[in-house]
């Protein structure tokens, strides 16, 4: 009998599968895109406003989809409200020490903020093809105040961005607060997910912006930031591997091979592409951005599935 590398080897996997992997990815995109848009708004440069709008346009549908994915994953979806209201007493249900409990509330609140910013972006945008949406700004001009530079807009952006980062990272803490191999053998998954969500969101926003032919200055800043965040993600990933210690043997299989592919083609190659672009904001990174997105998805896939394969 081979000795188990950790006491976590004696536990059962929770059967979290594709819905959860997708939620980790899409929820991360929602949080990351909102955070980047809020940041762009806070720097308040007129020419960058379409870029910020893009992030708000991504964040709200992603949050809505996240809710649906979580609902579909439940064994009894119609009892989803038991997460928020105790079904026996009808009192609010909240456990600050349970990441799933805090995450549900955070997703709900973040959903509200993404909706407000989504409305503000729609109200401001006069280039939308759908007439019903185009008239939002004309009918309710006050909606524009839900975004900076108004004080209310700034408050919404800052609070929403904090919740966005929470949504991007709590999923890693949720995995750590279990007794499963890999997940609970390192405290760094939350950090990894926050950094990864930001790099993924930056890649998606740049990809859409480049494909749309945008050339605003904020794009160059985003590109420059993306390189730094990918370096940070690599460092955190190395720290995760080191912190796992003997548990790392759990990745001496196909999952480990996939992880190496993710590191090589989802992080290092895009980083090289980013550095090779002499002029920041050139098309080089646009070609690498889909790999960052795919790598981010596969990273979550490896983490979620490899633990449950034990």
């Amino acid at each position, binding site marked *: 009998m081979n000795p188990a590398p950790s006491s976590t080897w004696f536990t059962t996997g929770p059967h979290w599968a594709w819905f959860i992997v997708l939620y980790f990815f899409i929820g991360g995109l929602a949080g990351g895109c909102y955070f*980047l848009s809020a940041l*762009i708004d806070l720097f308040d440069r007129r020419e960058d406003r379409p870029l910020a709008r893009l992030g708000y346009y991504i964040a709200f549908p992603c949050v809505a989809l996240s809710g649906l994915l979580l609902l579909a994953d439940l064994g009894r979806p119609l009892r989803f409200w038991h997460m928020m209201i105790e079904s026996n007493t009808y009192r609010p249900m909240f456990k600050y*020490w349970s990441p*799933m409990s805090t995450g549900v509330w955070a997703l709900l609140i973040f959903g509200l903020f993404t909706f407000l910013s989504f409305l503000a972006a729609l109200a401001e945008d006069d280039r939308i093809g759908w007439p019903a949406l185009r008239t939002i700004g004309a009918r309710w001009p006050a909606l524009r105040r839900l975004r900076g530079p108004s004080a209310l807009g700034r408050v919404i952006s800052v609070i929403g961005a904090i919740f966005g980062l929470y949504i991007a990272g709590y999923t890693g803490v949720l995995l750590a*607060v*279990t*007794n499963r191999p890999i997940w609970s053998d390192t405290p760094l998954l939350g950090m990894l997910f*926050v950094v990864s969500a930001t790099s993924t969101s930056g890649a998606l926003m740049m990809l859409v912006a480049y494909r749309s032919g945008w050339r605003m200055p904020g794009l160059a800043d985003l590109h420059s930031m993306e390189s730094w965040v990918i370096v940070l993600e690599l460092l955190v990933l190395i720290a995760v591997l080191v912190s796992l210690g003997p548990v790392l043997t759990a990745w001496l299989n196909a999952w480990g091979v996939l992880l190496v592919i993710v590191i090589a083609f989802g992080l290092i190659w895009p980083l090289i592409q980013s550095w090779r672009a002499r002029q920041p904001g050139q098309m080089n990174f646009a070609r690498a951005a889909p790999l960052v997105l795919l790598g981010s998805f596969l990273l979550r896939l490896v983490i979620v599935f490899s633990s449950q394969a034990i």
Partner: protein
Amino acid sequence: MPEPMGFYTDTTVCIGCKACEVACKEWNQLPSTNGGVNTLSGDSYDNTRRLDGIHWRHVKFIEQFPEDRKDGRWLLMSDVCKHCVHAACLEVCPTGAIIRTEFDTVVIQSNACNGCRDCIAACPFGVIDINPVSHVAQKCTLCYDRLQGGMEPACSKACPTKSIQFGTIRELHERAQERVAQLHQNGENRAYLYGADDKMLGGLNSFYLLVDKPEVYGLPPDPKMPTRNLIPGSVFAVLGAVMVGLAAIFNFRNRGASQERKMRP
């Protein structure tokens, strides 16, 4: 308020009859596996395989024989939920479906559980799983309904060798310690109690007398609470958020500075 109740399982007198499994299934009306079609695991006489949503008792068969079969022994153990004093499942459950009863046992209320499965990942013993019929997480209730009616749990009632004993925790501890002393006196010095003291998750209300290392029985040597990672995990996540925030601010501010320089005459 009743005294804390639980199980003491003396693995040295278990004969592997599985009466406990049958009694548990019968009383709790748990469905059969695979529609009742018998499939053999190939793992000794263990065709139950593991504890899950429809197997709340599991008799383990551990064969310890050398290749020449001259010497050896069977280790038999009826496994069940440990009803931990510090229960990981209860701690993380986001719906409040998992409760501690007046008997100090841990019960999942099936009508409140929504099948999120957080408790399955949290349990350090791999006890809980989804019941494929009800689609909610289920496990041993220590026959909560029978206890409320003044009866003992079905499994201990059915056990023909008193390997599974039910009673107050205080009384069970005394009995178990006497048995360990007796075994030591008879030369079985490997006998010890697993989970009887409060060092393991505050104490297990279902504890065991074992004669080999816990890992041999498929039990974790040092089970831990999942929330041990809550503070370090959260601190690192916040640190990650601060780092990306600084990276973003640094890069966006840089352009602002360069633009200002350009605008100067």
